[in-house]
């Protein structure tokens, strides 16, 4: 999954550097706050382990391609997502600088695609959610498989978006996606199996080495609401911002169908209700046609992607709170009766 410099433009590479730097800054601050000196050698040896594991390429049957492990999920399960993320950065830096594996300009993108999803989605969200309350062999296997598959799917999707946003290949989005996702699904299964095997062995022999394992049976709580919202908001913002750049300017399925039938993309509606609704919409639509008002630009499209993502998350969160509030109110009413 290591991206080459040639596949990215400086603008996209810079944007990915900014995103990865923000995540790295957060992780470094968290590690400094922990001030756990014993973690440093473990980070080093885990880094060496993942570095060695990434050198072993395995053949993916039926595709003619090969893959290697990412290791973000394994790192997070042992040393935690923040330390895992820092270790993955070190691994990618060594690969980029000493082995010319993955471009130097594409380093930000590689960190995001391989380290961020593995450590924060696979580790912080999935691993913590599944094994947080009760750790068992079954839960470890489920968390490893789910975390590896989901994080690799996210990573592969990001590679597709970044390449298309850079505009260096004329490969259609659907074709590129169809080539990337199934291959990384297979890699995800292998990574999940290997990760599960290693983590189950550690759990059986020295469970105290696992990140969120508590000896006294008091297991760490699941991922907090706030943390989950932050992680998904970041993913939505980056994906929305980049995805919007790769969006096709061709009409969508409905518009295409209408154009074929009526000869125009948008049907004109007559009547006072329609005109009033149109006037209201012209005031409420901050970003008509996914760009600035009276001005079409890349920044407008990116902003609308990010803004839309945040708005949807905010709306969903608000809806959840309202439903929960109503549910509690109803339950309280029943109790009073």
């Amino acid at each position, binding site marked *: 999954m290591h991206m*080459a*410099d*040639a*596949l*990215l*433009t*400086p603008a996209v*590479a810079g944007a990915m550097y900014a995103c990865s730097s923000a995540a*790295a800054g957060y992780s*470094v601050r968290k590690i*400094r706050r922990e001030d756990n*000196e*014993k973690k*440093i*050698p*473990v*980070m*080093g*040896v*885990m*880094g*060496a*382990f993942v*570095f*060695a594991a990434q*050198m*072993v390429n395995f053949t993916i049957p039926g595709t003619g391609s090969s893959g290697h492990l990412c290791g973000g999920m394994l790192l997070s399960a042992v040393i935690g997502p923040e330390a895992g993320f*820092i*270790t993955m*950065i*070190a691994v990618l*830096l*060594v690969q*980029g*600088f*000493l*082995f*010319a594996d993955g*471009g*130097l*300009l594409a380093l930000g993108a590689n960190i995001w695609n391989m380290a961020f999803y593995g450590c924060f989605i696979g580790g912080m969200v999935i691993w913590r959610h599944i094994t947080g309350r009760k750790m068992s062999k079954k839960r470890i296997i489920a968390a490893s498989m789910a975390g590896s598959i989901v994080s690799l799917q996210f990573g592969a999707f990001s590679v597709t978006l970044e*390449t298309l946003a850079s*505009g*260096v*290949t*004329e*490969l*259609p989005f659907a*074709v590129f996606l169809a080539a990337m996702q199934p291959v990384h699904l297979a890699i995800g299964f292998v990574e999940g199996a*290997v990760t*599960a*095997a*290693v*983590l*189950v*062995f*550690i759990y059986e*022999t*020295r469970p105290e*080495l696992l990140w969120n394992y508590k000896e006294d049976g008091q297991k760490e709580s699941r991922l907090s609401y706030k943390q989950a919202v932050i992680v998904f908001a970041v993913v939505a913002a980056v994906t929305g911002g980049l995805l919007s750049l790769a969006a096709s300017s061709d009409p969508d399925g409905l518009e295409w169908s209408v154009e074929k039938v009526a000869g125009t993309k948008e049907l004109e509606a007559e009547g006072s209700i329609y005109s009033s609704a149109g006037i209201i919409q012209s005031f409420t639509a901050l970003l008509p046609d996914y760009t600035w008002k009276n001005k079409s630009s890349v920044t407008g499209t990116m902003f609308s992607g990010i803004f839309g993502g945040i708005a949807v998350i905010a709306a969903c969160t608000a809806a959840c709170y309202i439903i929960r509030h109503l549910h509690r109110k109803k339950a309280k009413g029943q109790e009073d009766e």
Partner: protein
Amino acid sequence: MNNTRQAAKDIHISDNAGSSKDKEDGIYPVARLIVVFIYILLVVSFPVHGFYGLSGLAGMFLYLLANIIWYQVSIKALLRRIFPIFLLTVLAGSAGLIMDREIYFLYGQIPITYGMLSMAALILKGVFCVTASYILSVTASIMQICHALYIMHVPGEIVMVIMLMHRYLIVLIKEAERMQQAYKLRAPGQKGLHFKVWGSFIGLLLLRSMDRAEEVYESMKLRGFCGVMQYSSFKGSKKASICYVLLWGIFLFILRVFPVFFIVGAIL
């Protein structure tokens, strides 16, 4: 495990090469890193479509040529490193061949399409960027790279993990070899590891390496290590390094703006 052993060997070779080269030119590694970064930035900034990108890119080869000659880079090893990226860019660029068939000019009877030009530009970009990174990798030791990162204010934790990874890679390989030997002695005549023990083998390797790593770290601390790496062994000239960045920067910028090969060709 052969790949990992080869990687450790490569690191050792680059360590030796890096330490001998810095005595020759006295350029700070951070200066070399900045120039390589500028080079890659300028290479990827060329447009892929049309003839302009390709003609400009050709001139960027001069930087690589000068470095290959100066640092006596092995062409065979370089080609081995370039091959995967060559295949990747051919694959990515081949879409242009199918999608963009508009003819740019006729070379005799052969039509040269825009798709062909964009594919060639993509291949050149990929190959040039990897070559520049490779030259840096074989001429700078891990210590020099860490020194460069340290100067560039990369967080100390990341630099520290890189340094420890470098040390522990050998520990990991040695532990793996020891375990492999023990396994072979207990399972004579068996070819490789049985798949049923893969998980426990890797898990055990990790646990043993962690214990060894902790021991190594404790001994480092007993010898006075306080969590900060010392970079005092590197000696370089600040003036020479600034001149190096400026001169290469100007030269690369000229190559980016003017298609030098074509201008020289037109004059001749």
